[in-house]
């Protein structure tokens, strides 16, 4: 054999070994760190473990929002390889799968990671569980397990305060900018569930698992356990809430009850409500359509977002403003001839009671709700001065309650009018506007929450405490974590003025427009009736067309008790309830009886109802008529 052949053979061998030593050295020594990282990436996945959402309970520990076990059929996205259409077909032999189920499934699947369970069908009935698990071998990719699901045991009772949780959406994710959620997670969507989301939710745990190439879990690398959410204790009194709800009967309306001592909301009723349980896993289009198209607007939070002209319930606050500014003194009187005429004009603003009271002082004007007195007061005060003082009572401002959305109502002003009207006449604040403002009609409108809050300021004689639902939070072992701390401030108004208004409002109950509910009263009570106009009636539409209930005015009643050391304040609005004294005030009386005297008192008082209702000493609705006449003249 020639040497050249051997040299060639040696060269080939040397070449082979040099290549292999270098290549493996390059991969294992130089590229080691990078490739090791890829290897770790290959086998490790991070799976989130869910915290248990905190309960929401009332002040006595009654559970208002809880977590229940719900049986679901679910799959991991990585296991769903075949046609899902076929899967649904074969599944539907054993359980019903609706179009909504499918829609929800595709929606969650499309933004799920490989290790987030995607629910195909939830809330399985016992029969479905039995049926399906017996045939589970046909569906190796599916699992049946219990999942914790939010439950609102009182259904619609708290729909507008507690709200509900729902599936997290892309929009939610952008809003929260928090990575602490998995793709099919629940998040507070409305009400206190939304406002106290971070408190209720807790923190996700993280489990780092080892998986093989097929994605099967083979071991645990390490884990951080989830931190469960805190229990949220509300200031709400469940029994009071139920009572208030029932007292509204079939009426639409709202009742806000606040403890004036600490601002805690004792009851917050907005009727009609809706069942928040429907929303948890997505509401069906039919149900949603029904809620949207319901003329009673069950989705509207009347307590914090429904605004109504305050009517006569506004009068004590106007009186306070007038006293504070020195526009009136407690003893100053006017002559009530049953109507008011702006000097230099001829139009008569009529008193709703169509009586001439003669000489009337401020005390009587409130007690008997004299419109004439307040027409003049409105004009004398003027809208600019009202705007300087009345926001102190929360008018035109948000109360700061712990709900995600509330309406600030409207305290009208020259600026506001200039901005919102085009007509040259309407653009300008007219004297007639001030006159109407004086009896709480016209442009201004506020939420029942604002009215209840303003009432607590009178009850507290100038001490302002922000209303709130939050009482405290506790952990799983009932150890206190955080209590609500009130941050009150005093209004710079002389205490004697408040005392004066309080006694005027007490007179309302004792002998004034509200005395219909005073029978057998075992504590002192101060209040004010009111009427919020619904349509501006004129001579034509007073005809049959506008005789239906839906054109009846809304009834207001605001009150607090006991007068000296108030423990409870309330604002009630009964939509289309007519006169406040007739429909709204008796509700407040029963709530007060229950709260101040106990359950038995409410039963006893039912006997007195008949008596109380016959003494229907009501305001009438001439203000609306006046509006119309006013417009006619100005045009």
């Amino acid at each position, binding site marked *: 054999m*020639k040497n050249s052949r051997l040299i060639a*053979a040696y060269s080939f061998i040397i070449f082979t070994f040099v290549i292999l030593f270098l290549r493996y050295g390059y*991969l*294992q*020594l130089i590229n080691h760190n990078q*490739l090791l990282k890829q290897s770790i990436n*290959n*086998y490790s996945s991070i799976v989130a473990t869910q915290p248990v959402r905190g309960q929401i309970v009332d002040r006595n520990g009654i559970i208002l929002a809880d977590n229940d076990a719900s049986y679901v059929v679910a799959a991991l996205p990585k296991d769903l390889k075949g046609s899902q259409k076929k899967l649904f077909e074969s599944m539907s032999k054993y359980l019903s799968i609706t179009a909504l189920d499918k829609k929800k499934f595709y929606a969650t699947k499309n933004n799920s990671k490989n290790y987030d369970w995607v629910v195909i069908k939830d809330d399985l009935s016992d029969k479905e569980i039995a049926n399906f698990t017996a045939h589970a071998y046909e569906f190796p990719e599916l699992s049946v397990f219990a999942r914790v699901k939010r439950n609102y045991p009182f259904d619609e009772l708290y729909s507008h305060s507690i709200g509900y949780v729902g599936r997290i959406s892309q929009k939610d994710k952008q809003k929260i900018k928090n990575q602490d959620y998995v793709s099919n997670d629940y998040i507070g969507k409305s009400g206190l569930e939304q406002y106290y989301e971070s408190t209720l939710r807790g923190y996700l745990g993280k489990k780092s698992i080892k998986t*093989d190439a097929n994605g099967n879990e083979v071991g645990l690398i390490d884990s951080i356990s989830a931190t469960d959410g805190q229990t949220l204790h509300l200031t709400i009194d469940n029994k009071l809430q139920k009572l208030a709800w029932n007292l509204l009967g079939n009426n639409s309306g709202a009742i806000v009850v606040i403890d004036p001592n600490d601002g805690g909301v004792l009851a917050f009723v907005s009727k009609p409500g809706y069942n928040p349980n429907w929303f948890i896993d997505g509401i069906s289009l039919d149900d949603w359509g029904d809620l949207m198209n319901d003329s009673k607007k069950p989705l509207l939070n009347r307590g914090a977002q429904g605004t109504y002209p305050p009517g006569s319930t506004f009068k004590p606050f106007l009186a306070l403003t007038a006293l504070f500014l020195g526009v009136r003194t407690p003893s100053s009187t006017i002559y009530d001839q049953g109507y008011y005429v702006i000097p230099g004009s001829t139009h008569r603003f009529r008193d709703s009671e169509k009586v001439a009271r003669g000489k009337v002082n401020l005390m009587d004007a409130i007690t008997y709700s004299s419109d004439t007195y307040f027409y003049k007061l409105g004009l004398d005060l003027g809208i600019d001065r009202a705007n300087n003082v009345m926001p102190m009572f929360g008018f035109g401002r948000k109360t700061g309650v712990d709900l995600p959305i509330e309406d600030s109502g409207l305290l009208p002003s020259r600026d506001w009018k200039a901005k919102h009207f085009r007509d040259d006449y309407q653009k300008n604040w007219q004297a007639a506007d001030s006159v109407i403002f004086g009896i709480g009609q016209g442009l201004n409108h506020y939420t029942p929450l604002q009215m209840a809050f303003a009432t607590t300021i009178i009850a507290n004689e100038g001490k302002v405490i922000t209303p709130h639902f939050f009482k405290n939070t506790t952990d799983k072992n009932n150890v206190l974590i955080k209590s609500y701390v009130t941050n009150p401030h005093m209004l710079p108004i002389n205490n004697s003025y408040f005392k004066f208004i309080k006694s005027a409002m007490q007179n309302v109950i004792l002998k004034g427009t509200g005395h219909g509910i005073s029978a057998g009263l075992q504590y002192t009570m101060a209040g004010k009736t009111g009427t919020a106009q619904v349509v501006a009636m004129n001579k034509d539409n007073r005809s049959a067309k506008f005789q239906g209930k839906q054109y009846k005015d809304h009834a207001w009643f605001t009150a607090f008790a006991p007068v000296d050391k108030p423990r409870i304040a309330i604002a009630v609005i009964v939509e289309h309830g007519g006169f406040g004294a007739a429909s709204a005030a008796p509700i407040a009386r029963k709530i007060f009886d229950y709260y101040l005297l106990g359950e038995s008192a409410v039963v006893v008082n039912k006997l007195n109802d008949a008596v109380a209702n016959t003494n229907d000493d009501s305001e009438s609705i001439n203000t609306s008529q006046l509006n119309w006449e006013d417009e006619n003249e100005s045009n």
Partner: protein
Amino acid sequence: MSLTDNKFKRLKRLINKFYNLDKTIILILLALATINIFIQYSANDKVAGRIINDIAYLGVSFVILIIVANINLNQIKNWTVPLYIISILCLIAVLVVGVKINGAKRWLNLGIRIQPSEICKLSVPLILGYYYSNKNTIVKGLDYIYGLILILMPFALIAKQPDLGTGILVLASGVFVLFFVGLPWRVIILAIVTFVASTPLIWHHLHDYQQHRILTLLNPQSDPLGKGYHIIQGIIAIGSGGLYGQGYLNGTQVHLDFIPEKHTDFVITVVAEEFGYIGVCVILLLYLALIIRCLMIVRDAPDVFTRVIAASTTMSFTLYILINMGMVAGVIPVVGVPLPFISYGGTATIILMIQFGIMLAIAKRNKY
């Protein structure tokens, strides 16, 4: 002489049959076999049945090694022609009644499944060595043509299965013989130029999966979950081993199913991931030592037949290592070639042992 004496003598002769053999090669092969068992234990995820099967293969192949090493070389010469004919007939049989797995007909079921193309790795160099050793004159042009025909017949049959990897190894084993009997350089260069020039034509005739393998080698990331997957996962396994490795039985790439065929073609990933660069170097150095010893045997071989067979075997062995380890490390397209002595036992291991048995027979003739 008593019966026991007789027995003792026979035993002594048997032991001598072992002791007369080249101890360097035997020791290296034993070392590799030991490594094989440890690596296969890990690569088969400690499945007892498979380990026992592997050990049985090793045992059988060592027995075959000793037997072949003690066969007279002239006897071997006499068997080359029948062996060649049998291997060709087997290849034809494969095409007719072969067992089809994953789209390729490569196996014959004779109670145990055998792969006739593996036999050609043995029969092709032997028949060529035999053919040229009978030439008393200098090998001329026509002799090369005959030799080429002897090579291309089995190559074509194997390529038809299709099994390009084994086909190339068979082709190479024959070409090595031609090279060592003196195939002129100008012919070699001409062949290389022709090959390069005809690349587009060859490319055209390659199967889709073969084209894919070459394409993904050039850019594995182009198809990380498809054709590039094997290459990428292999490289990750090798690289994650680092210098010292993840520790025996601790390789995550290997044990969590990221490596396909980890006990056969990709077995070096097990070594690399669990024993690191050090483990790879130990294997490479054992191979190198074996090759150097073989080259010494080639140098001292007594005649053309033995020299050519020994040289061709050494070169083929080197080529197996280059193709397998190069493929797994991503420098050569994925062709199914096992890593000598480390991959799970099979026909390839038996054939390899027969080749080294012949090598030992040659060494014995050399009288070390």
